[in-house]
């Protein structure tokens, strides 16, 4: 008999529960595993963009999640590839694109504002899962 580890959410019976959504942990299912994580800040002048990259060392294209904010406020946004300047993020005329290859994770910071310089903080998590 295979040994498994399962933890259900409160009120659910771990011995009888079958709905995977009601488990906190289930050793019969895979989970995202963090390879590395980090953060950085970059200042981008009005109307300009800059690309920051970090080597992930995995040799394949990893799954990545990242968030960003202007250091002048506490509103965090999830990165989003290519958004039109006229549709940029609420409260900040700026966006961070996220893309990967087998060597690096890239963060392209676009400042769409014609007159404001932004300092952008990015926090990211790189997972072992990928392709």
């Amino acid at each position, binding site marked *: 008999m295979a040994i498994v*580890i399962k933890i259900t959410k409160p009120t659910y019976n771990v011995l009888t529960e079958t709905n995977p959504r009601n488990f*906190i942990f289930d050793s019969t*299912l895979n989970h*995202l595993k963090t390879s590395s994580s980090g953060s950085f800040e970059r200042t981008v002048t009005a109307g300009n963009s800059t690309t920051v990259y970090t080597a992930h060392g995995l040799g394949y*294209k990893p799954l990545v999640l990242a968030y960003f904010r202007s250091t002048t406020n506490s509103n965090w946004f999830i990165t989003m590839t*290519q958004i039109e300047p006229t549709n940029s993020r609420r409260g900040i005329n700026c966006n961070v694109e*996220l893309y990967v290859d087998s060597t690096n994770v890239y963060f392209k910071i676009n400042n769409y504002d014609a007159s404001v310089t932004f300092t952008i903080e990015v926090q990211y998590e790189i997972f072992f*899962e990928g392709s």
Partner: protein
Amino acid sequence: MAIKILVSKPTKNVLTATSPDDFYLHSDYPLLKIHSFGTFSFAVALESITITHSLGYRPYTLVFSTAVINDAGDVSAEMYQHDWFVGGVSVMWWGQTRIYINTLIIRVGESNAAKGGMVTGFYYIFKDEVI
């Protein structure tokens, strides 16, 4: 007394650590559980691919893919985080993932593309529901 399972990160004391970020596993906090993952490819001419997950609800999903980068239908070397949509004066390009209760529809294209290339990417579908 409630029984908990905790695995702390190196240098963190499992008995005294309090931040969720100090743990690899903490039974108070549910983990994303992977339902399925895979790679996909489709001709730019087809514009989309349908992935069946059969969960019966809209699951949390992450998708990265190459992007169509010019009118010839060529695709990028890097894989970009979904979604994106840019509408220019004469051309639009997009990468979108639509989540349905039993399928995902992954769309990548460019309105003027000669549709010669092949889009490639990867996806992760989780047991956890988008609510």
